[in-house]
């Protein structure tokens, strides 16, 4: 069972864990994720591998507490073990020298975008990053992203930190400058949709990372199916990254609501029992 060797509470809702998992650390490429389970009765949930250190055999995950499983995970401390931890899953991001790449991260999506920005920079791309959040206390990894970017713009919807407004505004400015070769956008579905619509008009290739509900993460169940270019694809094995101009975001939004009621019930029951922390 993988042991937690480092824990950092980044914001009241967002936690970073470093976990011992040598096999995964060795194999993992940017864009890939793990599936984990916290306890015997627990759900399997996917979380992106934000960073890895093959030499010390560790991987890092960053997650936002949104329901029962992420809440339970946030309660684990250094020295605790995670029951099941499988990966690395999904296709790695295609990292090549494209030229200029704009990486857009929204909310917790920045955790998913960071390893990609890092990978893109490492092979010699010019990386412009735009990191957005609803408000300052949901903003993560600003400094990590800055360290691997040629330029960084930080936005908050409510203007509580740095540039007020949505990520699409600075993105439009970059696009207007005319030298963007590729855009990668990861965050809430409406944000990825908005970015894809914007870049479509400029004809700039845009990758998005989709977050459908998953069970096994190995292509066995089909829970994670998404409609891309009129075809059904399984995000866990064919993705999670797809061409944003081909993704049916309406279908994705709809499928994400599947268990809303169950999720609320499960989380409320948990909070009632364990006390709201």
């Amino acid at each position: 069972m993988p042991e937690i060797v480092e824990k950092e509470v980044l914001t009241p809702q967002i936690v970073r864990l470093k976990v011992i998992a040598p096999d995964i650390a060795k194999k993992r490429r940017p864009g890939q994720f793990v599936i984990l389970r916290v306890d015997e009765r627990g759900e399997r949930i996917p979380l992106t591998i934000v960073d890895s250190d093959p030499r010390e055999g560790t991987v890092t995950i960053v997650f936002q507490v949104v329901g029962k499983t992420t809440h339970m995970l946030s309660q684990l401390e250094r020295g605790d073990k995670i029951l099941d931890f499988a990966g690395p899953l999904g296709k790695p991001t295609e990292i090549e020298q494209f030229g200029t790449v704009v990486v857009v991260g929204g909310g917790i999506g920045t955790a998913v975008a960071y390893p990609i920005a890092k990978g893109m920079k490492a092979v010699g791309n010019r990386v412009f990053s735009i990191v957005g959040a609803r408000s300052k206390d949901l903003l993560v990894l600003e400094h990590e992203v800055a360290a691997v970017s040629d330029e960084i713009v930080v936005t908050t919807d409510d203007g509580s930190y740095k540039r007020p407004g949505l990520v699409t505004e600075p993105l439009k400015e970059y696009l207007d400058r005319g030298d963007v070769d590729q855009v990668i956008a990861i965050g809430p579905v409406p944000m990825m949709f908005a970015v894809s619509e914007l870049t479509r008009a400029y004809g700039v290739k845009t990758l998005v990372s989709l977050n459908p509900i998953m069970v096994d993460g190995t292509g066995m169940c089909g829970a994670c199916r998404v409609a891309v270019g009129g075809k059904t694809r399984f995000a866990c094995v064919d993705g999670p990254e797809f061409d944003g101009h081909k993704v049916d975001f309406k279908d994705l939004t709809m499928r994400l609501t599947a268990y809303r009621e169950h999720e609320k019930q499960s989380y409320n029951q948990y909070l009632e029992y364990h006390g709201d922390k």
Partner: protein
Amino acid sequence: MDKKIKKKTLRLDRIPVGERLPLERVEDFREVPLGYTLDQAKDEADRCLNCKKRPCKRGCPVGIDCGGFVDRVSTGDIRGAVKLVKEKNLLPAITGRVCPQSDQCEGPCLVGKKGASVGIGNLERFVADWERKHGEVLPDKAPPTGMSVGIVGSGPSGLTVAADLIQLGHGVTIYEALHEAGGVLIYGIPEFRLPKAIVAEQIDGLRRLGVEIKLNQIIGKTLTVDEMLEMHDAVFIGVGAGAPIFMDIPGENLIGVYSANEYLTRSNLMRAYSFPEWDTPMFLGKRIAVIGGGNVAMDSARTALRLGTDEVALIYRRSQEEMPSRDEEIRHAEEEGLKFELLKSPTRIIGNGSGRVTSIELISMELGEPDASGRRRPIPVAGSEQILEVDTVIMAIGQQPNPMITATTPGLQTDKRGYIVVDKETMATTKAGVYAGGDIAGFGASVILAMGDGRKAATAIQDYLVSGNPL
């Protein structure tokens, strides 16, 4: 004619096996058949004519001497019967429950020519359960050879290879992608047909013999087959054919449409029927349509009935005769209230504004000329579309190979549908030191065939390890 046959009076009817009543059993997930008592088993075994030609043995894919073990049951030598069965089949408690016996061992049984064939499956289950109660006959283990074999997947084929090779003194490590071992026996076939405790016992038995089982290891991702070959002297691939097939009809992404794999995995592996005590949710719809006619469809439908669904309809495009499911399953499902919508096929799934399934459109079929499978081909009847109101649809129309391993293993040849190409006798793949079997080898999809493949592979692997050359 055989003398013995003349001596015995032919008893045409089977000793019925106790079963839980339909109304009681649909309330829970406990096993449906109760199994024979010792007296019942002896009585049933006594119907066997012990005929010389043993057509039953030829009907069993692994060649169990059915007449032989049944004869031992009739004389009360149960331990002897267990031994005979286990010469060919290491997991009789499982096959006795899930083999399609009427197409296999029981099909050609001589008694069956006049009346009901001898209940070989029930007797196999009986002797296996007797062994479970009276202490397992642990096989002798050869001294350690210092060699080791890596096995991918913990389904019946992988478990069989593990059992055979550990007894020969080799080190054995199983790598399983999921968090629980057993393959389809755990995540596919439901508790009411194959109690998980039985599968767990068999797996614990292997662990006691020294088999190491590593969970959460996705071969092709966590490790590759080539890396396994660096750690082991040979590799067996028994990953099943686990990727679900959808029909490619409109509405398949609506909320409430499941692959049978997802539905059964949520229920069996993730225990979603105990939500919210267990965290994984699933819909407990009121009206469910299951598409398909095999064991997978029947298991999905009977699971739905147990989850408190008001009405479950099975939609199958041919007639009941052509259904590939085990006969017993069809009968049990019927008793439990499953509605059969035969000679029908879905054309689209219809949803409401929030993307939830509200109904399914079906078209009637008629049967034409026999197709390649020998079954009459269903042809849609123009203008016969009809609407069935449902809130959940389960697609149980088949599986295909998952390319995760084949795509990451150079030198491993697959056929055009993605099955791994193997030698039929040795289960050797095109890659030296690598063997494959079970559903991924594509010769058929049943527990006993997977075990048969596993046995052949283990024999060939042993030769390979001893001689250093592939067969």
